[in-house]
């Protein structure tokens, strides 16, 4: 019996006496007390702040929160779907506001954690700590910059805080700019922060002094401190940045670390670490069968100058074009050799079929896109333009035609998600053939947040405001020269490149920015900064458009309150100290 008792109690003895049974800890995460206490953890914590640059990225469908996707609100881009902001129906409850608010504050919370705790806890060398804290400050400045660009005054938190302490009222727009400049100035003054990383350096993608100068210069543009901006832009040049020689190739993976790139979101062809531009800007003819969610606006296409520097004018291509209704103009964009059914259908859609040429219709319209600024072809797939796409497993050159027939032999038409509509399509950041990306959801190309052309054109802009036109023209001309465009000048009034006065040059610099940065998430914020958004985006009859100018969705200007985003409704409910921007309905 004793033996049996022993056997019975054996499991109890083996398993029952573990004193620490209830003391379990997570297997996949680090307890907070341990954080920042080793050199390695210090590195990891700072990398976590960089990771916040990726917040809002969604690989299941376009989030609308990635920087390039803001081109949908701009003068130069559009999306195929109706946008509440552009319909004038947006309310403070819209996820656009809450998601941006939350994501950028998350970046700030991470940076605050590092800036406060590295000096207190980290055993890393002083040199390293200095550099990492400077990086954290830059990123905090960047996140506040993004918030302030749109919300125009947000609460400033500079140290870790508890949930119940998230009750601050908004600081003024100017106070936030001051804080951003203070953080960036600290970076610039940090002796251990590198000026610039050269191509292939393991640190490439981290914060540099040149990035701090460039961003601070941009903030000075917002605060209209032109002289300070000019000084900072000059420093960027001094630290070794320059234009890359070829505009088209600049946006290929091989050149993502060229001297033009000052600070970019680092993309690698790995799940959750890559770019989504292929997915949401490509087409069904692109590798991975993509969605043309984001599109090029005809406004941009018309803005590209002729190669000789004169303004593009439809009348020189097709006399009488401007007087026709956009729907009737459709006829010029039809493919050659329409079938009888296609003709009937086109006529039913309102095309003026008397103008149709069974042979030569394509050639006639194609003249509109030849002899233009080289950046048109680099950015846009125009009608009857080719695209090196993918068919099945193999590469296939396809052509954008209307009406679409088939992606297969014999015509190899470019297939979109929107084949009943005819749109200008993005070429920039969309892979050619099947070898440039592994997967549509994670492309390898870095996405520039600030590149040297941006610096040059802001530099020019600041010089214009200082009424130093000759210097300003030199800066613009650097960018134009790279695109093969003739230089602006003040000597020959007969030429299209003639700059008549300060106001004329201001407009030209703005147009230069519009044609230089499509699909880079710059124009919407520029238009807001220039206070031109209403006049450009909501000019009479504007909307998301097909190539002939007919609206698919017509825009409606809700009111001037749209120039400052709504403080998220839910955040005001949770923190009543926050006051809404004026004019917003609930």
């Amino acid at each position, binding site marked *: *019996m004793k033996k049996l008792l022993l056997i019975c109690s054996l*499991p*109890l003895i083996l398993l029952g006496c573990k004193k620490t*049974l*209830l003391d*379990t*800890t997570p*297997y996949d995460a*680090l307890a*907070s007390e341990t*954080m920042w206490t080793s050199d390695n953890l210090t590195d*990891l*914590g700072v*990398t*976590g*702040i*960089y*990771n*916040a640059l990726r917040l809002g990225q969604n690989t299941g469908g376009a989030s609308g929160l990635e920087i390039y996707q803001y081109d949908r609100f701009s003068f130069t881009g559009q999306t195929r779907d109706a946008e509440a902001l552009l*319909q004038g*129906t947006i309310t*403070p409850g819209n996820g656009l506001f809450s998601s941006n608010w*939350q994501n950028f*504050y*998350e970046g*700030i*919370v*991470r940076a605050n954690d590092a800036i406060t705790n590295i000096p207190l806890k980290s055993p890393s060398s002083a040199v390293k700590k200095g550099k990492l804290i400077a990086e954290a400050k830059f990123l905090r400045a960047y996140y506040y910059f993004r918030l302030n660009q749109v919300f125009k005054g947000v*609460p400033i938190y500079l140290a870790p805080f508890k*949930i119940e302490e998230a009750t601050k009222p908004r600081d003024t727009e100017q106070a936030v700019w001051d804080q951003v400049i203070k953080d960036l100035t600290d970076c610039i003054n940090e002796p251990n922060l590198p000026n610039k990383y050269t191509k*292939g350096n*393991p*640190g*490439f*993608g981290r914060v540099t002094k040149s990035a701090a100068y460039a961003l601070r210069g941009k903030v000075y543009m917002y605060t209209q401190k032109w002289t300070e901006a000019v000084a900072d832009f000059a420093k960027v040049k001094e630290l070794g940045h320059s234009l890359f020689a070829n505009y088209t190739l600049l946006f290929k993976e091989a050149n993502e670390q060229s001297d033009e790139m000052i600070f970019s979101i*680092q993309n690698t062809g*790995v799940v959750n670490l890559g770019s989504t531009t292929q997915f949401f800007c490509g087409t069904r003819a692109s590798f991975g*069968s993509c969605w043309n969610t984001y599109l090029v606006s005809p406004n941009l296409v018309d803005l590209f100058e002729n190669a000789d520097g004169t303004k593009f004018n439809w009348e020189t291509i097709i006399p009488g074009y401007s007087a026709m209704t956009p729907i009737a103009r459709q006829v010029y964009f039809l493919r050659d050799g329409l079938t009888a059914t296609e003709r*009937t*259908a086109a006529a039913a*859609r309102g095309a003026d079929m008397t103008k149709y040429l069974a042979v030569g219709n394509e050639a006639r319209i194609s003249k509109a896109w030849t002899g233009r600024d080289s950046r048109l072809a680099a950015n846009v797939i125009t009608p009857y333009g080719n695209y090196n796409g993918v*068919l*099945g*497993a*193999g590469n296939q050159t396809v052509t954008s035609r209307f*009406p679409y027939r*088939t992606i*297969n032999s014999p015509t190899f038409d470019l297939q979109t*998600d*929107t*084949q*009943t509509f005819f749109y200008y399509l993005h070429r920039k950041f969309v892979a050619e053939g099947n070898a440039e990306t*592994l997967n549509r959801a994670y492309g390898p190309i870095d996405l520039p947040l600030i590149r040297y052309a941006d610096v040059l054109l802001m530099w020019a802009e600041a010089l214009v405001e200082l009424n130093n036109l000759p210097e300003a023209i030199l800066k613009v001309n650097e960018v134009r020269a790279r695109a093969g465009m003739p230089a602006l000048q003040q000597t020959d009034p007969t030429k299209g490149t003639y700059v008549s006065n300060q106001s004329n040059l201001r407009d030209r610099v703005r147009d230069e920015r519009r044609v230089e940065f499509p699909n880079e998430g710059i124009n919407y914020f520029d238009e807001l900064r220039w206070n031109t958004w209403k006049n450009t985006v909501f000019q009479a009859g504007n909307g998301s458009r097909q190539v002939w100018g007919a609206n698919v969705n017509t825009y*409606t200007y809700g009111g001037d309150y749209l120039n400052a985003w709504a403080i998220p409704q*839910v955040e005001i*409910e*949770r*923190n*009543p100290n926050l006051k809404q921007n004026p004019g917003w*309905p609930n």
Partner: protein
Amino acid sequence: MMRIMAVFLLLSVMPTLLLAQNRKISGTVTDENGKPVPEVSITIKSKSNGTKTDDAGRFTIDAQTGQTLVINSINHEVIELMVGEGNTVNAALKAKVNNLNDVVVVGYATQKKVNMTGSVATISAKQIEDRPVTNLSSSLAGLSSGVYVRQGSGQPGSDGASILIRGTGTLSSNAPLVVIDGIIGSMDAVNPLDVETISVLKDAASASIYGSLAANGVILITTKKGQRNKTTVTYNGIFSTTNPMNMPKYNSNYSRHMQMINEGTTNIGQPSIFAASTIRAWDSTSLIPDQLNAIGVPNRIAYPNTDWGDALFDNKVVQNHNISINGGSDKVNYLLSVGYLDNKGVMQNTGTKRYQIRANLDARVAKWLTMGTQTFASTQTYDMGNTASAFNFLGQTTPGVVPTYDGKYGFPHAQEESSTANAILAFLNNTAGSDRQSRFNTTLYAILNLYKGLTLESRFNYQIRFGEYNSHSVPQERWNFATNEVKTFPGDPSTFSTYYSFDKATQTTIDNVLRYTTKIGSDHDISALAGYNQMYSNSYNFNASKQGLIDYSITTLGSALLPTTTNGGESDFAMRSWFGRVNYAFRNKYLLEANLRYDGSSRFSPNTRWGLFPSVSAGWRIIDEKFMEGTKSWLSNLKIRGSWGKLGNNASGVYDWQSTYSTRLYSFNNVQSSGLAVGRIANPELQWETTTTTNFGLDGAILNNKLFFEFDLYQRLTDGILSTVPVPLTVGTASSPIVNAAEVKNNGYEITLGYRGKSGEFNYRVSGNYAYNTNEVTKYKGQLVEGYVTDATGAQVYQSNIGLVSAGGTNRILEGKKINEFRIYEVYKGSGTYNNADGTVNINGGPRDGMIRTPEDLAWAQAMITAGYRLLPSNAIRNNAIYYGDLIYADLNGDGQYGNSFDQKFTGTSTLPKYIFGFNAELSWKSFDLSMVWAGAAGFQYYWNDTYINSTVRNGFAFSNTVLDNHYFYNPLDAKDPRNNINAKYTRLKSSDPQNTALASDWWMQNGSWIKLKNLQIGYNIPEKLAKKMMMSRARVYVSGENLLMITKYPGLDPEIGAGIGYPTMRQYALGINVNF
């Protein structure tokens, strides 16, 4: 074995041989239906000798004339018969009505039903057997009061029902604890045919022995044991045909589809999408569907009009086979069973197969020691059809796509059709590989008889569940059959990926229970138990995928090229508990019970992890009182019960009290780099959620136990509810901390009423149950304060703190409201008088049902805007803002803005039923029997608004017939336009929705109440003689049907599934056979 029996018989018979007057008396014992009853004990009154009936109900005993035979069978009333002059005594037994000796399984023990003081519902094997259901949980619907069984999906392998006992008491997990033969487990793991009884512990007194695990009630499952000295082999086979109980109904007329898409775009001023010529092509070809086109393809394929509901669902067959062997000797008894299920589902490639085995063994090793095991294992495979995608995209296709033809998937032929119009069947067949889940669960136990009435039971259980998953894409082509063209290519193997995943969960439990029972004098029954339990569970998973196959068919990880993802994780959880119980009964009239449990959980910090959970209960059997003598003629039973107790719930995440940094990746110079950031904000003060339940019960029976009833009234208060609360967005994206945030009160009552009767050879038993339950959040983040305040400039502004005190969206948590009560906009309702007497616009004079239907309605809306009111969100009259066929929202707070965020109101309803009910009936006549089970729920609403039903039109998306047949249209330029339909129920078709018809408003609320005939069964017992000829001791054939009938007003797919469209539940018609050898 025979030898042992012979010796035993000899020994028992020998002493009686000495008495000369004794003679052999033999007979047969039968039941009410004339069927022989085996294993009935026959004794001679006040003597020790006795015998038992054999399988044919026969017995032989030595007795004298004038002695009394006592015939005692567990399930029947005891009969006493005088031995007369003859040598034959036959007895007809009568089944016990409301059996007072019924034993109910309760936590760690069994109790006589008469002595129960808590609230426990029982379900016997008979109530769930011979049903073609594929899992145990879904067979419980309608069988016991206060238990809401809801089958949310009919997908094979995922069709287990969710069970709610007495409604929803908390914001965290509401799942009841499932205990199988004393060990915590999963109901899905149990073969329904192995079940002996199920007890549902509903109140705190009966459940508190399980302390912190029991706040949502406990379901105790006991499996069958072997029977001594008898071997039975049982075969149970069911074949059933299945078809979906309901199907989504989409428009299948493509010409009409195209016209409607055009209507949707032209309604808001956009160009038509489909050319008239395309529409005509379908109109003309649909008249001659079998005519071949130029390349020899029939029109019905070249110009399809596909009914996707029809294309997606098939009738299939479910097979269910079980064999069990049941037997034993004096010292050992056993049950072995094997089960096989093959459920093909009602959609392609969505079936499941399951194999289950069980061995229950019990051995009396010594007088003082019994040892045994309950061991079972199962493995289940699942087909790879991607139903999630299929349902997701079911709305994203059109009748213009052929499902399959010639083994190939279709692609739209109409030039204008969206190329993303999906081939839905492709989703069901685009993944290959294998998914398998296996379980192994074993308990070893020993029971020591230490002293008279004192036993120690020690149990050790180990269970493991592991899943092995492998998937890879199948190359698919999509064709335009009209032109015989490949439109979508399969892609190169180098772009294909393969994915492997493995997960494993283990649980180890040790249980030691000391039990003592004694009787002091004849009046005092005392029993007590004390126990210790500890449990540790651990789970981990690993998965990896690689891209770049050398061939479509070569899919191992090793053969693929590029690693894309590698992931894995692990977590664990432990508990340690002490518990005890005392029962005391005085003269079996006054009953008392007390329980105590002390639990420690690894989910809380060392300072807060221990919790004490007590309960007391009492019962009074009034019927046995002297003063009740006078009622005996009609009242057969009356008992009142009362209980109070506390239960806990630790349903937080396993490490929620600890703050942690989680991995956040980034890359520098194209090299991946690890980063860390706070993943979850900690709450070290986290502690137990506590549920306090008070229960009052009344049991009774009248008319000689023919009519019986049970009534329970309860209140349940849960405080310290584990929940996340809304935190400001400024805090960032880290998960909100879990806090002990809320308090919820539940009130309810339950009634069970039954009647049992007999008329000649016709026997029947009917019983119904009904339960009412309602909940209220009594504490959360504070009171809702809404209203006008004067701001700094002196202006009146409307303010609300709803974002602070309430969480959720359309369904919200707020003090004073139901859990997840709806908060929605209200559609404007006016008088239709438009103007005031002075000609100004009357704000209460707008359209009667909120929809702009007439030019007068539209003029009123324009006048409102002109007068400065804002009709949100569009606030403008034109065809792409507010127009004919749009909705106007009500201005509830009177700020002149119609439909801003302050114009949402609470509805007083949620998706949780207030009333649940069941009805079951059993009838038998001679060899035939019939039974049925009804279940239902009422008093709840669904917000039903998805692409299936709303009026937003998108090229490439489907139309519901519901909307098409009854949608608004008005052509202001042509009052005679045949399309005009200004009295329609649904709003106008729009390709975008500026006035936001899809807003969560009362326009979309639907009553979800339903009643279903869950099961109907008709059986026939093959006559014994015939059965014997076929070497069977008993055989029954039956037809059985599941989900035969649904009564509901809900217009969607199935209110039991939920508001959306999901895998339909199956309607089954089964033929079954049940054979004993």
